[in-house]
């Protein structure tokens, strides 16, 4: 999924199940690149689910998987890495 700006390949991706997320913020504060943020919208249970962006404040996602390991609700379902 090339990012619109530079047509460069996004080396990694985090898949989020928005309906499972309880907006607990743990992945947001633990992500070294700060790519994850709570969205403005509400999921069915009334929580603000987290959203993934490839480019975070500290740089691009490195598929380190920390979000996968800290998420108490398994809402971070997959961490993918691009294989050329």
């Amino acid at each position, binding site marked *: 999924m090339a990012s619109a700006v530079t047509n460069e390949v996004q080396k990694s991706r985090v898949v989020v199940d928005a309906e499972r997320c309880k907006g607990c*913020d743990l992945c947001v504060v633990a992500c070294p690149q700060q790519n994850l943020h709570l969205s403005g919208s509400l999921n069915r249970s009334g929580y603000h689910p987290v959203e993934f962006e490839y480019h975070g404040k500290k740089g691009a996602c490195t598929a380190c998987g*920390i979000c*996968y390991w800290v*998420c*108490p609700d*398994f809402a971070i379902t997959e961490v*993918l890495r*691009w294989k050329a």
Partner: protein
Amino acid sequence: MIGIEGHYEVKLGPLPTLTGKPTHYCAGCEHGTLTRLIAYALHELDLRERTVLVDSVGCSVLAHEYLNVDAIQSPHGRAPAVMTGIKRMRPDLLVFAVQGDGDAVSIGLSELIYAANRGEPITVFLVNNGIYGMTGGQMAPTTPEGMVTMTSPHGRDIATTGAPIDASKLLATFEAPAYVKRVLLPVTPTPATDFYNARGSIEGARSVRNAFRVQEMGGFSFVEFVSTCNVNWKMSILKSKQYATEVLAKVFPPGLFKDKFGVEKR
């Protein structure tokens, strides 16, 4: 994305050892995190087909709803005894329980001690958040001095209720247990930045895998996870991580207490 050769490879993915059912755990609770670590280890060690989970009584009583394994529900505090009964009949099965501090260190301390002392090849994961969660925030044997709870409204007074009990240190005094470990599971604030460190989850994943390996090698394994309960501590989720790091982890410092089989080295 035409013309760019390659594909996305799953580094960390969905686990067949999870049922997929949303959890009832409060937002940000380490019971949920630990459930993931267990599911991952069961999958990685290909144990799912011969695992029996013993549900304790407390917040983890619904663990069978989330872990896709056989399960048996134990009376409050009696999981180690139930596991002993299963394992002695079926030594080929892997049995484990997730117990809260009320379940394991209060009503179930006797069962825990005797199973450990017999070196039963079973695994106990203790979620120690210093309070009774499911029943609404009462004092537990692990409640730190001065903590306000529903049954220590003026702050826990250790002169009349005793000091917090260190289960890991206690079990480590016995000859038989093969693996006794304590991990600070929550994300921990790092003073310099607004960034939180996730070493607890990584160390936790490793400890869960080691605990199962020790059981497969015929030893008793016990991992205590210092955790949080922000709802009953009446704190925000992130404030509770700070409290766990600055207060609870001082009363229950993480560490490796026993590793008779040296699993941490290989």
